[in-house]
């Protein structure tokens, strides 16, 4: 089990709506970028196994799509399987690849993720995504994911007092980051002009407190990443990025079941009661219907493995799962960037902005780079890889969001309303 796991390459096929290329063609483009960047990869010989990441058979109208992708990429008869866990699908795929290599059975594992969501109109896409909620209780009321996440944020606002302006500031940060990202949907559709808080307020209301610019985009796109064992990594690159921690966690399918969840009782005694001075409202034990317990669990597991006890100091940047801006704010708390209820302070002090102590979402992430579900966290992982190997300036053709000397980064992803979460810590060699 001492065998370390490295990231040695990968690629992205840009996020947009619509992409007219076929699913397999977008995947091929991502793999082509990986191969163009790394001539040491003897393809397909060096690939021992593949893990495929895509969320919805409904959106594609095609089951077992990975069988199409696998033969299209010329990877037969190598072992392959599909991971599916809603929005957590791509991070789950990466963590599975990590464990494949740790097991010693495979040395080099390719992860390929994609989604094509543009084939249906937006209300139907919302409906099919909501099929990943409890279809006997939450689904028939018609809130759907925009609604589920909105009620969680309303509760968080009620308890801790962040405002719509705080949420808008997160939107501004992420959209403006995405204007530099040549793979980003926002840049494709809206160009490179910066947005303001006022632009967020002027965008269409979706589910109060969320407006269109607070919400994840509906996207097509693909991404891939090649993971390798310590033994084989040096064949591919002199500058591998190591995975030093992974974590997984879960919470209830129905957000409404979290108000007094016995399985979380006593788990985080420090967060059982509200911090005095932060909120005077009465609340049930953490995570309640305001925070994300699965993210706390997965983060703590990854921190322990990577030896991190002060994330803000020990991490240089992070890419978080941000389908709605209040989620990013709550994640600051769940991932211990700050105390429960103090996410708004990080926003107001610019801690997670470009130039802040812990920049988050330099890619723009879900609301601005785009969110083709099965590809999203893999593309974010690739952006982390490019930052840690100092390739971002070259990839993006600008230094505007390129870090220098960054050592360690966190990737977090989840599915449902935080029903399943994963965290990965990446470190440069």
């Amino acid at each position, binding site marked *: 089990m001492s065998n370390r796991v490295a990231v040695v390459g990968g690629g*992205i096929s840009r996020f947009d709506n*619509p992409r007219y290329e076929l699913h397999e063609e977008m995947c091929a483009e991502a793999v082509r970028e990986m191969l163009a960047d790394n001539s040491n990869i003897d393809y397909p010989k060096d690939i021992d196994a593949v893990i495929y990441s895509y969320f919805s058979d409904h959106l594609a109208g095609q089951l077992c799509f990975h069988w199409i992708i696998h033969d299209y990429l010329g990877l037969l008869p190598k072992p392959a399987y599909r991971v599916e866990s809603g929005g957590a699908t791509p991070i789950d795929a990466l963590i599975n690849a990590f464990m494949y290599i740790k097991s010693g059975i495979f040395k080099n594992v390719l992860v390929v993720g994609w989604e094509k969501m543009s084939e249906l109109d937006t209300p139907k896409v919302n409906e099919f995504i909501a099929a990943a909620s409890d279809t006997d*209780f939450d689904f028939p009321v018609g809130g759907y994911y925009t609604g589920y996440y*909105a009620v969680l944020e309303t509760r968080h606002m009620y308890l801790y007092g962040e405002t719509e302006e705080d949420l808008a500031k997160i939107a501004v940060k992420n959209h403006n980051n995405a204007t530099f990202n040549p793979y980003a949907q926002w840049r494709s559709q809206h160009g490179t002009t910066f947005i303001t808080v006022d632009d967020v307020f002027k965008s269409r209301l979706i589910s109060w*407190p969320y407006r269109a610019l607070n919400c994840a985009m509906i996207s097509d796109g693909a991404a891939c990443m090649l993971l390798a064992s310590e033994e084989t990594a040096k064949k591919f690159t002199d500058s591998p990025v190591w995975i030093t921690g992974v974590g997984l966690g879960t919470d209830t399918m*129905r957000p*409404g079941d979290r108000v007094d969840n016995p399985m979380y009782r006593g788990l985080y005694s420090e967060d059982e009661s509200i911090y005095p001075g932060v909120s005077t409202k009465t609340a049930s034990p953490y995570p309640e219907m305001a925070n994300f317990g699965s993210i706390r669990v997965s983060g703590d597991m990854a921190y322990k493995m990577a030896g991190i006890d002060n994330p803000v100091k020990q991490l240089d940047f992070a890419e978080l799962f941000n389908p709605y801006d209040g989620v990013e704010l709550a994640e600051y708390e769940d991932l211990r960037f700050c105390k429960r209820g103090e996410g708004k302070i990080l926003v107001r002090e610019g801690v997670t902005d470009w130039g802040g102590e812990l920049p988050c979402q330099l890619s723009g992430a879900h609301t601005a780079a785009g969110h083709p579900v099965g590809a999203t966290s893999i593309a974010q992982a690739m952006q982390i890889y490019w930052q840690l190997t100092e390739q971002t300036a070259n990839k993006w053709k600008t230094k505007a969001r390129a870090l220098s000397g960054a050592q360690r980064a966190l990737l977090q992803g989840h599915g449902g309303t935080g029903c399943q979460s994963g965290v990965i810590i990446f470190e440069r060699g």
Partner: protein
Amino acid sequence: MAYKPKKIVESLEYNKQWDEWARQGNWSPVGWRWIEGPKGYRLDKLSTTNYLVIQRPHASLYHHSYGMTSKFFKGLLEKKLYGSKCPKCGSIYLPPRAHCWNAECRLEETEWVELPPRGEVHTFSVMAFSATPFLKTLPFIIAYVRVEGCCTTVPTRLLKVNPWDVYPGLKVNINFVEHPKGDIMDIYCTPAETPDPSKRIMSSETIERLKDDMRKVKEWVVRKFGSEAKPSIEI
């Protein structure tokens, strides 16, 4: 019929039209477009090419059993509200669970109890966009309500209240629709008390913005659905 019941005790008459709905759209193309569009994996490496896009409809009919929680949904048809109670620890669940999830109860089977049609708002949202089946009823308020005595909250529609007058803790009544059909939308909530303006969680600026939003959403729904539009929020 794919789903063969052991014995039908009571039912709505099976309508052959339901099978027709499921047969509508057999994954078979009904139309096509020849489109000019971009090709390329990065924004700085795009070229133009042509794509054939077909329209391919599909529909299904599910024969879904509510399993051991069926009594709750049959209760809705009879305009009664049931929750499930664990005989070991006393937890009452709505949404119901047939087995208690408290670790010490080791998945004990629960028993049915009738619940009072009262509760309080735990949290809520004002929906201004949704999915296909619900667009006509926009805008609407969705509230997660803790029914008296329960340890979980249930999603419902909240009617007959201005969105800015809703706050966590607002007492509500659970009402039944006139013609229940056997799903959670058979119940809806209305305020059981006059909302207290001092408990509002929205600022006056937010309220002004929201009023404007509600107007825009209603206009959009009416434009899209004409006389079929049934906005759920009256202002």
